[in-house]
């Protein structure tokens, strides 16, 4: 289950909002729960929903792991850092040892990064839209 956050929406249709509020009141629910239900229904109707959901979950974990990688390493280490669940699991001298450890842990996303970290991320040509 994901967390909750405050979302402010600009230019939302006034009458639509009043209707949502009225239905929420009639059904003894919150406005948020009505909007969540509607948005979930819309998302499930998308043909690529499964792919986008998997991507969003991977991306959330990736950002958490990247932050851990930047915060918890001094920059002097060498080898292959394994990062998952927002923690640096360890620095391995061998890439395959890090990969084996990652398979044992079975997080939803894990990074194995060669240290010291390269300054700029890779940039490449993709050609035509695929």
């Amino acid at each position: 289950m994901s967390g909750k956050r405050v979302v402010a929406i600009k230019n939302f249709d006034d009458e639509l909002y009043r209707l949502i509020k009225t239905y929420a009141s009639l059904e003894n629910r919150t406005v948020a729960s009505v909007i969540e239900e509607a948005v979930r229904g819309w998302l499930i109707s998308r043909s690529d929903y499964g792919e986008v959901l998997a991507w969003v979950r991977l991306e959330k974990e990736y950002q958490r792991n990247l932050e851990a990688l930047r915060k918890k390493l001094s920059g002097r280490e060498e080898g292959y850092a394994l990062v998952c669940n927002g923690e640096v699991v360890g620095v391995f001298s061998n890439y395959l040892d890090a990969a084996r450890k990652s398979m044992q842990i079975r997080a939803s996303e894990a990074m194995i990064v060669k240290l010291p970290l390269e300054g700029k991320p890779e940039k490449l040509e993709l050609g035509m839209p695929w």
Partner: protein
Amino acid sequence: MKAYFENEDLNYAPLTEVVVYNPLKTRSVNLKLVIDTGFQGGVLLPLQAYLNLRLNLMEEVEATAATATGMEVKLRVAKVIIDLGGKQFESKAYTTLGVRRPLLGREVLKRAGLLYNPPKELKFPIR
């Protein structure tokens, strides 16, 4: 190794069949890849193939890529082993949202010597 052209209506899409393994060789997928000389990297996989290989458990720092239309996209990246005609070598797999056809890029073409080699006699001269 099979490398061939498919579908005259598509002006013969150049294809090759490869096996892609994760670095531990615990999982593999057989794919028909479109040879794409506009793609600089190794292989571009649909997200599902990337997940089937468990590459989400051994990702590198994300890369960015520019398409021919100037659009910039984020790419997930992981090491893979590619079997091309019985010869295996290490390469990089990339994925992003919306990949429908897997691509074989110039990094692999360079290694395999699959270079564009025009015939000596052309239908019309190009100078």
